[in-house]
């Protein structure tokens, strides 16, 4: 079994961290994982993105030409990755920031106002966790408990105080897709 996803947005939106968290949680479950960032000039000015693969078997290709899913944070990323998600795949997008609907009928598209939900929780910086929650509510490459465990690894020292609100943001994402 293999789950793969592209995560894309502006630098600073927590795109890479979302991917790392997913990969780390997968590793903690004993799964094979890869995390591949876009790097160098590609990263400057435009969108930042990373590809994460979580699998039971050794992962051959960390490059995703037609990912099973995409989590997109902004319009540019939406335009870039909407066409490449595989048929029947999943697209999770932040409808607070993306004003366009998907033109593909063959995708499961989650329009979640992730930034609005994050603001209600106190800070737009939790947007990435809301989107991750929505993704995990749809497909389950790893358990929520593992993500919680990884949060504690990433958020240490002063940031440890943010673990609970990040968990809430994750749950808000899960609840949003479960309500639908």
């Amino acid at each position, binding site marked *: 079994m293999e789950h793969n996803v592209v995560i894309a947005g502006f630098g600073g939106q927590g795109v890479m961290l979302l991917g*790392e968290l997913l*990969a*780390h949680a997968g*590793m*903690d479950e*004993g799964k*094979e*994982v*890869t*995390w*591949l*960032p876009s*790097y*160098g*000039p590609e990263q400057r000015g435009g969108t930042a993105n990373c590809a994460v693969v979580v699998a039971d078997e*050794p992962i*051959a*290709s*960390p*490059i995703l*030409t037609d990912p099973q899913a995409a989590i997109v944070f902004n319009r540019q990323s939406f335009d870039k990755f909407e066409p490449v998600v595989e048929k029947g795949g999943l697209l999770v997008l932040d409808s607070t920031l993306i004003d366009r609907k998907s033109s593909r009928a063959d995708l499961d598209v989650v329009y979640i106002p992730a930034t609005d939900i994050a603001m209600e929780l106190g800070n737009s910086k939790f947007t990435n966790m809301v989107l991750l929650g929505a993704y995990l509510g749809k497909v389950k490459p790893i358990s929520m408990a593992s993500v919680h465990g990884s949060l504690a690894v990433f958020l240490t020292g002063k940031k440890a105080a943010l673990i609970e609100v990040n968990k809430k943001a994750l749950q808000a994402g899960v609840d949003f897709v479960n309500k639908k």
Partner: protein
Amino acid sequence: MSNKVLMKGAEALAEGAIQAGCRYYFGYPITPQNETPEYMSRRLPEVGGRFVQAESEVASINMVYGAACAGVRVMTSSSSPGISLMQEGISYISGSDVPCVIMNAMRGGPGLGNIAPAQADYFQAVKGGGNGDYKRIVLAPSSIQEGVDLFIDAFELADKYRMVVMVIVDGLIGQMMEPVEFKTRVDVSTLKTPEWATVGRHGRDHANIITSLTLDAPGLEQWNLKLQAKYAQVELAESRIEEYQMDDADYAIIAYGTMARIAKTTVRIARAQGIKLGLLRPITVWPFPAKQIQAYIGKLKGTLTVELAYRQLFEDVQLTLCDKMPLGWYGRGGGIVPGPQEILTAFEEQFGKGR
């Protein structure tokens, strides 16, 4: 719970070097391997080592040369154009019979090219690059864990044969994160300064002299013969290959590094379609695992060499298999990495449906 950590390749390989006892790093920055010197600059002082950012690649490799003469475990790393600048030094180090490890995170070329994954430095790494008849051991990992393990082997091999060992990767392995486990295999405290090191006489009756200069021709020929004998020994003892799904294979893809990793998926897709495809993955590209590949003569109906370059690895496959079976080739350049399906399409174009 395992002892695995999630690490970027360029950092994990650097830690592998430290675990192998490397205490000296000299280098000059270039993408896509800057995390390696960055990591070294942080870690080496913690373990009593030294990190120097040199003023150029030429300076870096000559600092490596100097440290190697002192008999310590030393390395540098760079990417394609930077490695080109080091070729003179590599030849001198090889001609002087001293050990060191060099990592090349290969990028698209020629020239300044770009920073995307490529394998177009194969000839430079495997066939030469610098002047004179020298060889270096070239290791080509295809995962971060393998890279870490091979980095430890690299230092052991360098010392064992007093040779340059090059580890060739690319930006994909350098930038990717994968779980990695460090298995301590080298007891650094047991590493001793070799007898030949130029670290002072210390009561010896002679001074050690290390040079690649031998003006008299018969003397230099003898020196060359000694080097050649060593290379022959390495060829016999150190070639390595991974044979994947080869037991009943009718065809094989031959690929190394990143390309081999992706070709593994091609093998899986082909198998699901009833094509008996396997993968032969050289782990050492010098010495080339010719014997292991030749063992499939008479068993295979053909091979497809796949590389991120234009017929470089393919030349070694041709030398290995000659006309013993149909030899197909597929490659992309300039930093383009073909996906598994693209490779399968290339296979089918050259070998039909593989039946």
